[in-house]
């Protein structure tokens, strides 16, 4: 009856001995199965995207599917010069400005809310569940509500008023959730030490809390920017007469059947990667400076 456990523990002991002797234990068969699954997942994640980047580089004969026809930047020029593809340039500019506004407000708002949620306060549960509600509410429903509200109040819906608010109702809760995770690693003893040394409340925040949390705040900024830059369903009813970029892409998916669409995909992805690069670079720089300061 007890043979199986004994056999198992003997094999475990053998594994131990192998580790002690500096030999890595043999990988179980599940490793290879899961490694294959992981490789398949990454391939499915990146494969299709790479396809459209490649296809966007075709020349004028190009179509929507492989094989490639020629190699040129024709569809990129087409994208920014043709009227029939819509106001891509304007949409691009508006989306960037809106995303920057959203990013700044999200970073400030989530940082302060993160400070608030470190202790329990009256009504904190209500605020928390409102936040979760705002996060899970269908974007289009919220957009319709905001659109109707503005209509009722007689305020014109524009991308920098109603759409800005609609985006914030989604990026702020997301940012606060990230702040929760960031704050959980913050030791309040640092703050107390600063207070004991005579720092005022604002000095504590500016000179202790913000510098320590800086990498987390950059992460919140990255969330804020990309969530707003890509947001579609919340913008649909709230942007007024001028389109943001995702709305332009949406109308293009319905009308345009040329590689222009893929060229737009390539352009927006390059923009996304620039933002990711800047943010990761900023985090790395902060960490490096911190490490060198400790070394001094």
């Amino acid at each position, binding site marked *: 009856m007890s043979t199986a456990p004994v056999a198992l523990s003997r094999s475990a002991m053998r594994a131990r001995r192998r580790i002690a002797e500096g030999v890595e234990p043999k990988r179980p068969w599940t490793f290879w199965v899961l*490694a294959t699954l992981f490789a398949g997942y990454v391939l499915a994640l990146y494969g299709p995207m790479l*396809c459209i980047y490649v296809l966007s580089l075709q020349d004028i004969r190009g179509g929507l599917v492989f094989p490639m026809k020629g190699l040129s930047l024709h569809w990129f020029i087409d994208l920014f010069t043709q009227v029939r593809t819509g106001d891509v340039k304007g949409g691009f500019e508006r989306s960037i400005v809106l995303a920057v506004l959203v990013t700044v407000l999200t970073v400030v708002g989530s940082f302060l809310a993160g400070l608030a949620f470190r*202790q329990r306060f009256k009504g904190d549960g209500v605020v928390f569940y409102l936040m979760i509600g705002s996060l899970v509410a269908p974007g289009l429903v919220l957009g319709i509500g905001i659109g109707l509200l503005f209509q009722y109040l007689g305020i014109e819906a524009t991308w920098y008023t109603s759409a800005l608010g609609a985006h914030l109702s989604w990026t702020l809760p997301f940012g606060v959730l990230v702040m929760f995770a960031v704050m959980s690693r913050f030791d309040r003893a640092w703050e107390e030490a600063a207070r004991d040394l005579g720092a005022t409340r604002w000095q504590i925040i500016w000179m202790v809390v913000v510098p320590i949390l800086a990498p987390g705040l950059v992460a919140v900024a990255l969330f804020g920017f*990309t969530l707003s830059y890509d947001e579609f369903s919340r913008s649909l009813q709230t942007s007024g007469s001028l389109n943001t970029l995702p709305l332009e892409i949406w109308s293009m998916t319905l009308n345009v059947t040329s590689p222009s669409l893929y060229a737009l995909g390539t352009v927006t992805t390059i923009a996304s990667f620039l933002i990711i690069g800047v943010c990761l670079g900023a985090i790395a720089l902060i960490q490096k400076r911190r490490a060198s300061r400790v070394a001094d």
Partner: protein
Amino acid sequence: MAARTLAQRKQITAWLYASPLVIVLLPFFVAPILVVIIASFLENDGFGGMVRHFTLANYAAIFGAELTWRLYLSTIKFAVLTWAATLVIGFWVAYFLVFHVRNQLLAIGLFLLCTVPFWTSNIIRMISWIPLLGKNGLVNSVLLSSGAIHQPLEFLLFSDFAVIVAYVHQLTIFMIVPIFNAMARIDKRTVEAARDAGASRFDVMRFIIVPLSKNGIALGSIFVLSIVMGDFFVVKVMSGGGSASIVSALFEDIAVLQYPPAAASAVVLLAIVVIMIALILRTVDVRKEIAR
């Protein structure tokens, strides 16, 4: 002037810190939802306006129509299938990264590799399936030339299959991140102790890893389910108009300025999402989980 106690001052400070969040949520979440709820009880004048007259006709129309039931069924079908697929893939990818990749730096690198596409446009990632799955797409041409099939597979694009593929492609990351976080906190010595005490690998999975990852699974499920339930873009593009979801039907109503029926449908959808999330939240304290 009476001096405020320290506790009272702390309360006021906390509220001041939380005020920007509240100032955004009140006009851009609470008020719009109230507007939608009110609109759902108003009469439609047929010209894009609303008559201020209380009626339940919008709700009666929703529950009376066979179409609605089909829409809800199809949306729930998409939600459940996507949830199941993202859970299976997300769980095993996270498990692989945490328990099978021995070099921690490599594990973090591979984890970042999974998250990068999240920062790029969802719409573009969805469109990128077209050159692959289309009738003359890559998958079909490879299968045709290999002789596995003789007719191009039609179900690949503009079908329910394509919708699920696009959802899984976009949303698996929402499962991987919280499950990865939960698993990374499992003390490896617990697993070792169980193995030494004679537990099989299956027992370790059943009694240690799954229970300790439960919170991450719940968090991921909330994201995946709420996004699929609220989506209409993926359904519209990837099904080629062949399938509909609750929100896509609602969008059609809005397009012809039928606000009250759309609002009623939105309220029913909200109720379903809230019930779903509440059921999940009963099993896990999200706030404690995230702050941990």
